[in-house]
């Protein structure tokens, strides 16, 4: 089963970060609406199941 780890929007948290945990990363998505572009970042774990935004 594909997990977040294989997604190009998964960015592992560096070991020296305050919130580092093994397998933890940032899920960063670029969005666009009529007002323009913006990015959202949410903490996830690499073992999480793929979501509809998954992109390898």
């Amino acid at each position, binding site marked *: 089963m594909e997990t977040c780890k294989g997604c190009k929007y998964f*960015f592992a*948290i*560096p070991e020296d*970060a*305050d*919130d580092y945990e093994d397998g933890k990363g*940032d899920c*960063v998505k*670029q969005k666009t*609406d009529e*007002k*323009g*572009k*913006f*990015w*959202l*970042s*949410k*903490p996830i774990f690499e073992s999480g199941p793929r979501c509809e935004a998954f992109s390898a």
Partner: protein
Amino acid sequence: MNIHADVEHRGKVLKFTPENDAELNIPDDELHEHLFRPSTDRTRRLKERCRWKHASAGEFINKDVTAGIERMRLLTEAHKKSDGKPEVIRRALGLKNILDNCTLVVQEDEFIVGYHAEDPNMFPLYPELTPLAVDDYLMSDYAPQPVKEAAEINEYWRPHSLLAKCQGYFDPTDLQRMFQVSSMEAPAFATGYNSIVPPYETVLEDGLLERIRLAEENIAHARAEMEKTPWDGTKGLDWIDKIDNWTAMVIACKAVIGWARRHARLCRIIAENFETDPKRREELLEIADICHRVPAEPCRGIKDAFQAKWFTYLICHAIERYASGYAQLEDRLLWPYYQISVHDRSFQPMSHEEVVELVEMERLKVAEHGAGKSRAYREIFPGSNDLFILTVGGTLPDGSDACNDMTDAILEAARNIRTTEPSIVFRYSPVAREKTLKLVFECIRDGLGYPSIMHEGIGVAQMKEYAQYSLTGNGATDEEAHSWANVLCMSPGLTGRRKTQKTRTEGGGSFFPAKILEITLNNGYDWSYADMQLGPETGHAKDFKTFEDLWDAYVEQYRYATSLCIRAKDVSRYFENRYLQAPFVSAIDDGCMELGMDANALSEQPNPWHDPVTTIVAANSLVAMKKLIFEDKKYTMEQLFEALRANWEGHEEMRKDFKAAPKWGNDDDYADALIKRFYEEVIGGELAKITNYSGGPVKPVGQAVGLYMEVGTRTGPTPDGRFGGEAADDGGISPYMGTDKKGPTAVLKSVSKVQKNQKANLLNQRLSVPVMRSSYGFPIWAAYMKTWYDLGIDHVQFNVVSTEEMKAAQKEPEKHQDLIVRVSGYSARFVDIPTYGQNTIISRTEQEFGSGDLEFLGVEL
């Protein structure tokens, strides 16, 4: 363009043609659409794509705006997990869970980053304050999704909320009366509405790592003290609360640092993985560097200061707890960093113009900030997101002018970018430099409705006066008294590293003198709106044989309403101290850090106030009754009451008489003498008999926000000749719209007569557009301000907008998106205000300056 009639002044004929010739070719009804001049293309783009969250008649204008669920979900999750821990620790863990796990937002083009919800079109909710406000959202188009989960969360909080804690200490009848919001605002524990003055200074000067170090040092000291022998239980147990508070502060500060650094990481990820423009990529890396450094470390330059301030704002006003406002003495706060970056160019070097761009960007961040207020609080600020007010100007402790180049940058940016928020307060003093005064004037002349002007001498004296009541003996020093800013629209309070106001239960909230008068005429019963007893039984209109009988009955009603209002705030405060602690705010306050106390609990500088709204309707009504009934004996109280019950229908001649009775704002000695007595003996004098949580006498801050419309609709016909449901007076001490007929200086003379027992009183004035835009505009305004100051009036704010333009905007709103007006205490896009409210602004007297006015003002041309 409209031309004001010529005026002869000291042998000279003044012709009021525009100072800028190009304006002669601009039609009167579109002037404001020609005044937008962003300093850069970036700020133009940011304004064009601004995600305004203005509401009109309680509805969000932009239909994409909704409540988010994330904050309430994460807070609730933490609350469930932390059962059994000390409450202040639970509050800190709640904040930590939000900040560790919330979705971050970074938008295109922005330099100052950070948002308080999971999507830039959303805003958070606060079920821990009051489930009533969330109930309202759940029933609306703006409900957080999924609604079922949000409803479950709200149910979870129902027994844990501030509302649940407080309401048992009140007679249900009293509560029911407050919930009518017709003689009193609903209690704080039911509304969740709040305000705060964050001690930004410690964050910018110390950084949060230093605050953590201080707290940890204090914990170590406390533990050592507890371990001393022989044990003294009368003192040693005091350390327990302190240790919990300091521990919570450490948790909160670490969480905020982690959250800021998550922003740093996001900016780096965007730069390295998404952004294609090399210049923006470089900028994102710079933002990443800033967010990694601040607020953890002290700010080293002006960019650091803007970012650290914004993060602090979000935590204090939107994430740890909701609070309206944008209270800060911004020019003084940023001045050290301006000097580093602009004058010394030793860190984050930049020009003055680049600072102006930063301020424009900050203004746009505020403009798209959304607040999860209940419907009632959206309705009373029509045309705005919320209240956001910053302060500039004033004097330094040695009495010299405090205006600096940062003051000017703030004013230039406001003039250029034309956003309704944040509003600006200018602390006017006679020593203010002309360069800055001209910028203040330009903002006003261009119709922004701000800066709103406050009297420096009165503000400083007020800080010193309230310091005398400090329960800790540590109120404002003479030096600190010069560091005040308005807490919200109107009330001064301290800024700085400690002693600032932390909750609206200290000062804020409203009561409504016109409705109190209405029920005074009917034995305390509200026949026109609530259809219930709203106050004690003090007799009917016909029972009042003398004016003093009526007066005494009013005073009794007033005492009941005001004591209940302040009691409700203090009971809220009691439970805020126990269940709504604010460990982050505590961590950044030097007093809380020193004493190991929660920010809500510690009160070093009392600042108690409450807002009478609709005072002038009540006052004009008293004048009319005194004259026509008790002195001229033209009518009886029975006749008046009958006419009022009929909303004057069938009593038209009688209404004309009551409407023609002397009115406030015309320098009429008859009206003014009674109204002065009303303000000083009742509105202020009776209120000052009440002592609040902090030990200070409560004083009135007469203002109106949009409540003058909202409460006007709930107030029946009044003896000033007003029909039931008509709007009330639009300021704390403003003449009723259209009844000030003797020119601008007559208004000043009337208002200056009220001096005792007041904290602040809002004065709205509408000035002639052609006069203000002429070459004589600045000297006339400057002379007006000097006279205003010398008369000892504490406040004034201006609309400079033509009736033609407002009426044109009513017809074609899409063509007038940049038309801004001053409502009362805040500015709004005119087209975002409901028609009812728009008409109240059109109805305000547009003051023109006659030769007598110019002479009284001593205008030198």
